[in-house]
C-alpha cells in the first residue's frame, strides 16, 4: 500500500512518515502543495494524507484540482483547522475523512487503514484467501488460527496481493505499492520477497497460493481443489 503524505512541518513529516512506514506502508512525502499535487497525479496512491495550510498551494486547492482531473484516490485531511465550517468545506471539496491536529497516532493509522479498505470496497478488515486469513486491522496473517510470523514488508506484500486477489499484478505495480522511493530497489527484490512469503504461507504438498504468470507477474488465489 503506497501512501502520499503532504505536510509542510518537517517534524511531522518525520514522525508521521516513520509511523506509516512502521505500519508497513510505502510512504512518499511532499513538503508543499505544488509538489503534493504533482506527486499525487504522477503516481497511483492507495491514500493521501493532506495538510491544509501548505506553502505555494493550499491543501483545499490541491484536493480540488485532483478531483477536477478525475483522480479518485482517497484523501484524509489532517489539519489544525477545527471549525465545523472548515470540516464541511474539506469534505465537500472531495475529502473522504478529516482529522484535526493534535491527533492520536492510533486514530490516524486506523483511519488510513479504513480509507484503504474503502478504496478496495471492503467492509471487513479480514480477507480470506485459501487457507490464509489476513487481518488488515491487526496487520497479521494466520493459518488455521495460528499467526504466521511475517516481517512488516512481507505483511505489506501479502496484504497488497490479498486485496487484489485473483488479479495479476506486475512486478512494477508491486514495487510501487510496497517500497518507498528511499528503498534501494534491486531488480529481483520482488521475486525474492515473493519467495520468502511463499515459504511462510504455503502448506507442504499443496500448490502455492501465489502463482507466477510468466512475463506478466504474480497472482494470489486459492488453488484449484
Amino acid at each position, binding site marked *: 500500500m503506497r501512501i502520499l503524505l503532504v505536510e509542510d512541518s518537517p517534524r511531522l513529516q518525520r514522525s*508521521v512518515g*516513520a509511523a506509516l512506514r*512502521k505500519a508497513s506502508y510505502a510512504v512518499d512525502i511532499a513538503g508543499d502543495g505544488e509538489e503534493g499535487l504533482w506527486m499525487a497525479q504522477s503516481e497511483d496512491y492507495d491514500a493521501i494524507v493532506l495538510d491544509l495550510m501548505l506553502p505555494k498551494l*493550499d491543501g483545499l486547492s490541491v484536493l480540488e484540482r485532483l478531483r477536477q482531473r478525475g483522480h479518485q484516490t482517497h484523501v484524509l485531511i489532517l489539519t489544525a483547522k477545527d471549525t465545523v465550517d472548515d470540516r464541511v468545506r474539506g469534505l465537500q471539496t472531495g475529502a473522504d475523512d478529516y482529522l484535526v491536529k493534535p*491527533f492520536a497516532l492510533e486514530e490516524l493509522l486506523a483511519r488510513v487503514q479504513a480509507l484503504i479498505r474503502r478504496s478496495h470496497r471492503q467492509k471487513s478488515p479480514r480477507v480470506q484467501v485459501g487457507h490464509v486469513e489476513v487481518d488488515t486491522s491487526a496487520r497479521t496473517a494466520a493459518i488455521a488460527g495460528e499467526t504466521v510470523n511475517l516481517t512488516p514488508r512481507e505483511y505489506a506484500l501479502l496484504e497488497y496481493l490479498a486485496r487484489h486477489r485473483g488479479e495479476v499484478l506486475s512486478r512494477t505495480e508491486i514495487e510501487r505499492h510496497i517500497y518507498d522511493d528511499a528503498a534501494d530497489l534491486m531488480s529481483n527484490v520482488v521475486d525474492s520477497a515473493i519467495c520468502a512469503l511463499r515459504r511462510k504461507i504455503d502448506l507442504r504438498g499443496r500448490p502455492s497460493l501465489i502463482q507466477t504468470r510468466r512475463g506478466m507477474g504474480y497472482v494470489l488465489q486459492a488453488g484449484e481443489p
Partner: protein
Amino acid sequence: MSIHKRLLCGLLVGLLMLFAVSGGLLYFYVRTVLTRQFDAALAAKAHAVCSLIKQSDGGVELDFSAESIPEFGPTGRFDFFQIWRENGTVLQRSPSLGRNDLPRRTDVGDGPAFGNILLADGRPGRSIELRVVPIADEDEREDGERSRAKAARAGARSVRVVVAQDRSDLHRTLALLLSAMLSAAAVMVLGTAAVVAFTVRRGLRPLGRVAREAATIDAKSLGFRFSTDAMPGELKPICLRLNDSLERLEAAFARERRFTADVAHELRTPIAELRCLAEVALKWQGDPETAAAYFQDAQEIAQQMETVVTTLLALARCQSGSLELSRQAVDLSDAVQEAWRGCKDRAASRNLAVSFDVAVPLVVETDRTMLLSVLGNLLSNAVEYASRGGAIVCRAESCGRGVRLTVTNDNDSLALDDLSHLFEAFWRKDPARTDSSHSGLGLTLAAAYADVLGAKIEATMPSPKALSITVDLPLAPQSAPVE
C-alpha cells in the same frame, strides 16, 4: 422610585390641588353672587317698610297694612320686620313675627348692616338693620332722602328697623351647589387618576421595551441593535449611544475571540508535532539514533512554544500597563550591534548583504531591554523575510528632538495592502509559514514595546520591492523637560 410612580404621584397631586383651589374659588364666587342678590332683595323690602314710617305729632307711627305688603302679614312665613323707638321700646312687629323678637345688633351705627341670624323657630335667616328718621306727612311729596335729612337736622326722632328673611332656600341652594361640586370633584379625581395612569403607562411603554430588550443582551447577543425608527425623541439619543457601545463591544469581543483562536491555532501545531513524535517513539522503541532525533525535535518544539508563550505574556503586560521602565542612557550604535548578534548566523545562511549607518555618538534615554527587543525583532523580521541574497539597511539618525531608526529590507512578497496587517498578532503573508521559528508575534511585540517607550512605529514601502520599518524614539521621556 420609578419614573412611572413619580410621574403618577406628581400629576395626581398637582391636578387634585388645582381642582380643589378652582372648585373652592368657584363655590365662593357663586355664594357671594347669590348672597348679594338676596341682600339686594332684602334691602328693597327694608326700603318698602321704611317708606311706611311717618313722623306724626308727638311721635312716630307706621302706616302698615297686611293687604299692601302681604308677605309681612299674619300668614307670611318668610319675611319679618321689627321697629324700635330710640328708647328701645318696640314700635311695631310685623304680623308674621307674632310675639317673637328679631335679634338686634349693638355694633351697628346708622346702617344698613347685613347679618346672618337665627329665626325664632330655629330656621336660618338674614337680616338688615338700619336707623331711619321718619319724615313728616306733609313732606311726603318731597324727595325722601332730602326730607329725612331735613328731619334729622330738625332733631326729629329716629327709629331702628330690622327686616329679616328666611334664608333656608339660599342655604339649600348653596348646599346643593357644594354637594354637586364635590360629586363632580370625586368623578374628576377618579377620571383623572385613570387618565393619568393610562397616559403615563402608555408614554413610558417605549422605555419599558428598551429595558426589556437591554435585559436580553449578553456576551452571545452583542449583534443586537436597538431599533430607533419608532423611538420617541428623548430615547433616540440614548439608544444610539447604546448601539454605538454595543458595536464597540462586539468588535472588542470579536478581536478577543480571534486572538484566542489564533493563539490556540498557533499552539495546536507544535502540540500535534510533540504528541505525534512521542507516540511514534513510544510505539516503536529501540532505535537509539531515531530516539535522539525525536528528542532533538521535542526540544525545538518546546523552545518554539516557549517563545510564543513568553511573547504573549510580554504583550499582555504591555496591554495591562504593568511594565516598569528602567531608563538609562543607551548608545544606539552599541544597541544595534548587540541586537544584530542574534540574527547574524541566519543572515549569513540566507546570503543577505547587511549595512549599518548609525551616527556616532547617538544616545537616547530609554529602557535598554525593551529597545533591544524592538531592534532585535525588527532585524530578525528583516532577516527572515528579506528576499534570499537581498540587502538589509539599518539606519539611525538624529531627527528633530528624537532619533529615527529605520530598518529596510528587500522584499518581493508584500503589497501595500499588507502594511496595515504587519503589526497584527500572528499575521503572516503566507499563512502556511507556521514551521519556522518565527511566531508571527515579533512585530506585534516591537510595536507594543515602542508604544510603551513613547516611540512611533510605522511601516512603509519606499519602493515596490522594499519594506521599511521606522521607529521615532524620543531622546528622553516626554514628561521630563527636554533641553
